[in-house]
């Protein structure tokens, strides 16, 4: 499936990636290639390494790459700092967005947006211009302006935190977005808002990786590819109907694949 001919160059290439934390191997040879315009879903049980994969791509310092490469737009990024990866267009939507007391959401969004704009050689925005931009983006996630004056994620409900993540994605306009269980903890209405937000932000140039347990997000955003992870490896890759089959048969079904391999 991954070898299918595509017209443009890949955005993200994960090649035979192995990684560990505290000498405990978590990833054991993961390969994944994302081309512009593609939506990939990664599914799997808790603890299979899905979230770790997303954190390693974003550059989390707690993990060591023991083997393999991560390439972004053809360049090896194994040793780049998280902020350098973010500035160049990698976005990680957190499963549990972090609260930062005392730091205003508006200021946080402005500083991060400007860091990305600086990288793109675009003019940095002052508070007034940023205000205009953020107003427009708030529409996408149907968020109230009052969110901006609060501290980053502090006291936000689960759904508000996830919407704030999508707002950040909208502002940063990444080349590739990895959304780690963005659907968890959302009610049906919030899920629709988030899903439609993701669709509005993504385009033919962006790649999306959705990490999820459930079919319901994939009903809203149809993936081109579905990967099933188990014990630090991708054990099966298919098209969107694989997710449906998985939903029906459960992860126990996938245990057979491991035996096969």
């Amino acid at each position, binding site marked *: 499936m991954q070898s299918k001919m595509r017209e443009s160059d890949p955005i993200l290439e994960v090649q035979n990636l192995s990684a560990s934390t505290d000498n405990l191997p978590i990833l054991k040879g993961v390969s994944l290639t994302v081309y512009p315009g593609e939506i990939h879903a990664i599914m799997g049980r808790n603890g299979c390494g899905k979230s770790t994969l997303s954190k390693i791509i974003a550059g989390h310092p707690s993990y060591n790459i023991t083997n393999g490469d991560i390439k972004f737009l053809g360049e090896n990024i194994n040793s780049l700092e998280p*902020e350098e990866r*973010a500035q160049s267009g990698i976005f990680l939507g957190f499963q549990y967005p972090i609260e930062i007391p*005392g*730091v205003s959401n508006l200021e*946080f969004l402005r500083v991060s947006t400007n*860091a990305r704009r600086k990288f793109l050689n675009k003019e940095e925005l002052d508070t007034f211009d940023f205000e205009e931009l953020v107003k427009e983006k708030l529409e996408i996630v149907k968020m109230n302006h009052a969110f901006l004056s609060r501290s980053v994620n502090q006291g936000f409900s689960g759904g508000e935190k996830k919407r704030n993540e999508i707002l950040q994605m909208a502002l940063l306009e990444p080349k590739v977005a990895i959304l780690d269980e963005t659907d968890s903890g959302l009610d049906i209405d919030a899920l629709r808002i988030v899903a439609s937000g993701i669709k509005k932000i993504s385009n033919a140039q962006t790649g999306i990786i959705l990490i999820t347990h459930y079919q319901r997000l994939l009903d809203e955003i149809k993936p081109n590819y579905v990967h099933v992870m188990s014990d630090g490896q991708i054990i099966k890759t298919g098209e969107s109907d694989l997710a449906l089959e998985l939903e029906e048969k459960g992860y126990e079904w996938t245990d057979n694949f491991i035996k096969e391999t």
Partner: protein
Amino acid sequence: MVNENLVKDVVKEPYKYGFVTDIETEKIEKGLNEDIIKLISQKKEEPKFLLDFRLKAFKKWQKMKEPDWAALGYKKIDYQDIIYYSAPKQKEKISSLDEVDPKLLETFDKLGIPLTEQKKLTNVAVDAVFDSVSIATTFREELAKHGVIFCSISEAVKNHADLIEKYLGTVVPASDNYFAALNSAVFSDGSFVYIPKGVTCPMDLSSYFRINSGDSGQFERTLIIAEESSSVSYLEGCTAPMFDTNTLHAAVVELIALDDASIKYSTVQNWYAGDEKGIGGIFNFVTKRGKCLGKRSKISWSQVETGSAITWKYPSCLLLGEESVGEFYSVALTNNLQQADTGTKMIHIGPKTKSTIVSKGISAGNSKNSYRGLVKMGTKATGSRNYSQCDSMLIGDQASANTFPYIKSQQPNSEIEHEASTCRISEDQLFYLQSRGIEFEEAVSMMVSGFCRDVFNQLPMEFAAEADKLLALKLEGSVG
């Protein structure tokens, strides 16, 4: 746990104010005894009442013991190995700035405190103190038009002896504590402020204290009097060169607010803190206290303490007047091997008095940062209220933070509320900000200024910006 290696890579910004001014100075011999005190008093041509004040204080000091209750550890100070008077040599009587040694003006220029007519700050009057003497005070004529007196305390002794005699030592008596007694015996210079009845001081007043010589202590004394219905905002800044020896700084600040008067006293303390191994740095033992004597009077302390090897400092309020208000807003940051034991005392004596304490301690490196505070409600303090909030932030896993809140209430009809918290900058928080393109150092400083926001909001505008920058600078390379 914050990534150690990442942190060690970051290069530490050197202390910007560490230079020494090469200037001929007049120093008296080392040591402390009655003759030395008489000599200081004689050099300053003081009236007899002041010499008596000094000698009495010295007698008390000799009978006192250096306090050891603070959570501080340091080498014993040899009080006979200190020079108690050091002044740059200049003409006997200086009538204008033109006669001040250009080297001194240059020094203050370098510190960002230009004093000359052409360059002086436009919205702040400055009293510049160099070692034991005041060099210059700007905007004096302008202030005099409003009846405001702003001069060095030595001049005030000569020209306003009545006010000095009436108020000196009434807020911090010489016998108050070991360091206050020492200061009372040997104090050299400092600032004097008098705001007459009904006057709102037309500009901020500021003192800048510079220690230049390595072997002499600085013992400044500041006295601010706000008459009925007057108000003033006073700022204080401090720096010192980098020496590998410790220099003693023992100051006393007294504030007096009469009916409906208000005094706002802000400090940015950036004395040399010593190097990363804890060598050198200022020993900062300071007694600051304000007396809300009048009804509805208000004294507000705000401080940003980032320097000194040792800080021992508890700016306090005596709330005597009915409905008087005391405030204390503090950010204390320690890094490397710095130690700070700082806080406040709010002594509620009059009825319906109110006090607020907001303290933010940040400890990084191997430093030790303690908040120590006392809230006391006296028998007559009916309907009085206190609110205290003490938060600590730890950066890295080698630093320590303590909170010692003492509460004494003799008045059941009063309220005391205390909140405390400790937090640590987590790797997850840093990673979250970094994953949004924000540089590591900026991420740390964003979180630190967020933590300090409540206090920074209380600082005068220019000070707040400076404080923000100062914290970022001090923390560079500290996160580990």
